[in-house]
């Protein structure tokens, strides 16, 4: 097959570009440690979330020094808990599921973004550094009130943070 010289050069450059992109992404995924939504979590009966120890009562829980877990339900057309409150400079793992249809969970201005699928639990870990309020948006169409579905993530300065119920301990 006759391939023109310029075409050969172009072909080689195109392949190099592709390999370079794959390398960059692999670097981000491995060395830079950008974790991805995966399949570590078991499936869940979306009709029986009220019997599930994590989701019966959506909440934020401290699980270690500076380590928190947030159990979040996304449903037509609210997130709970709302707001979600965590301290700065901590490590927060979100577990999110839905009792009805597909939803999205996107912390605005960040790459904390996941699909929420009934029957599945999305797990993502973030390390909020900057205290402040971050909007949470459902970014997957979920029904006629989709555009009203929002939440708030409040990142408190470390020394001002107190988990609900902590004062009793």
């Amino acid at each position, binding site marked *: *097959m*006759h*391939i*023109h010289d*310029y*075409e050969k050069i*172009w072909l080689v450059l*195109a*392949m190099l*570009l*592709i390999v370079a*992109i*794959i390398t*960059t*992404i*692999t670097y*981000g*995924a491995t060395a830079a440690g950008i974790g*991805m*939504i*995966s*399949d570590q*979590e*078991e*499936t869940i009966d*979306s*009709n029986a979330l009220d019997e599930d120890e994590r989701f019966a009562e959506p909440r934020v829980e401290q699980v270690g020094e500076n380590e928190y877990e947030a159990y979040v339900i996304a*449903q*037509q057309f609210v997130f709970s808990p709302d707001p979600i409150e965590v301290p700065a400079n901590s490590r927060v793992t979100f577990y999110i599921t839905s009792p*009805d*249809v*597909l939803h*999205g969970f*996107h912390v*605005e*201005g960040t*790459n*904390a*973004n*996941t*699909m929420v*699928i*009934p*029957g*599945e*639990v999305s*797990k993502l870990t973030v390390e909020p550094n900057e205290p402040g*309020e*971050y*909007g949470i*948006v*459902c*970014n997957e*169409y*979920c*029904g*006629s*009130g*989709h*555009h009203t579905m929002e939440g708030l993530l409040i990142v408190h300065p470390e020394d001002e943070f107190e988990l609900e119920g902590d004062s009793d301990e």
Partner: protein
Amino acid sequence: MSEQLESGAPTFLDRFPQEAKVVRAALGSSFVALFLGALFGIVQTLHRTDVFRFMDAEYYYTVLTAHGVLMVVSFTIFFLVGIYTWGVVRSLDRPLENIRFTWAWYGMMVAGTLLAVVPILGGFVDTSELSADVLFTFYAPKQAHPLFYGGLSVFLIGTWMAGADWFRSYFAWKQENPDERIPLQTFMALITMLMWYIASIGITIAVVGFLLPWSLGLFNDINALLTRTLFWFWGHPVVYFWLMPAYMLWYTVLPTISGGRLFSDPLGRVVFILFLMLSTPVGIHHQYLDPGISEGFKAIAMTNTMFLLLPSLLTAFTVVASMEHGARQRGGTGLFGWLRALPWRDPAFTGMTLAGLMFAAGGFSGMVNAGLNINYLVHNTLWVPGHFHLTVGTAVALTFMAGTYWLWPQLTNRELYSRPIALAQVILWFVGMALMSNAMHVAGLFGMPRRTAEPQYEGFDFTATFGSIAEFDLQLAIGGTLLTISTLLFVVNIALTSAGPKVSGLGKPLSEPLSGPEDSPEILDNLKLWIVIALVLVVLAYTLPLASIIERGGVFGPGVDPVPMVVEPLVAYAEAAAGESAVGRLATAIGGVLP
């Protein structure tokens, strides 16, 4: 050069009057869908940017469903079957085997479209159960009326029959010409259909196996992740289904109207074979953020996707090289000076070239989407529709419109009503899309979600790192308005052309490639080999993820009930429906998911 080409040659209509009628009908149907789709498009553009709102926000999703389905199912695919019928008949130089069969598949596609559109428009009627506000992607457990799924199935069967029609032509031709290479246009049509048949496996299982019987109430539970994955099994190759007819025009028509010849026929074949092999085993790249699919499967999809850049990069070279050859034939000189010698006054040429230019930009934003982890920043933001309005919305749509300016006179024996209007139309599309798509990309980076009626929230504001949100909303609205005007100009120009006086001698023969099929190994034409490889790749890419999804959640899912998409709030609907036995089932189903 163009005068020479127009010197009285017989047109497609002169040579194949019956086939020309079918092609006209298919293209005509696609233009009706384009026109309606554009009307829905401008309504949603003005609504979401808060420039002009005249309806309740909930109807936005009805409008969006109609826009999506009409544009990416009806407009694109009707055009595809029209242009491929033309390409196959023209390049094999023989009429179709049985024109009644041809009309039958066209009829199926029309019937399917109407069946699907009825429940979509039912969304505008408050009291109607007939509703399908599920958007183009119809992710379960959002549930549409059974007519919606039924209509899609009928439409799909129509497209399969169209492919069978072209294969039948090809087999008949092959009998008479056993030693000849498959003509390029026929080769492209056949490869496209092979890809389409493979892709259809996913959507067929999803719709016929699950969604249709589920919407009829035959069973209650659904595995939302499974049907979503099966959707994307089909949902990515479908974007190449839109694109490949545009590629066919770039490879076989654009070189001629540039005044030259295609640089390389063999590479055109290689490109299409790569599409056949790689466009299906990548669907999971739409699901990078899905729980229940492992990182490994996502990484495999990402790698395959990046290699899918190759055929498009090769095409960029071949098409530009062919244009340069054309320009030099027309007397162009210099390193870049030849660009001036191109026929910029020809709307068909300028439209296709601008479409190709925008496709390059769309390719780059697509690389961001395909980037496994970069994608987290833009997934489901306005960036994504910004991207695909460059690809399907311009590379495909504008090429189709430009190609129509070239082809329509040869299907009707009527001269184009106005070339200046046509030229203005394609430029207007380019400018409108540049504004709209830019605004969408930028707003997406600021985190603004797609598919959202009123992306203005109570608890927070989007932070624009430059400019302001209002500015980009306005840019989006202006762009959308220009695109609507452009669509109207196109439709009116074609309608007036069809009403014009008949003339003869409008035929425009296509030039032969510089490097023809005889330069390529015969193995390229071995369709059986390529389909086997493509199937193996699909099996490799999908067996494990699908098995894992089913193993995790079961075939019918871990207890996920249907949620019919009706415009009224669900609670109100359930109360209203509770008394009626006919819809009692619905109420029970909803009862299960209400707090």
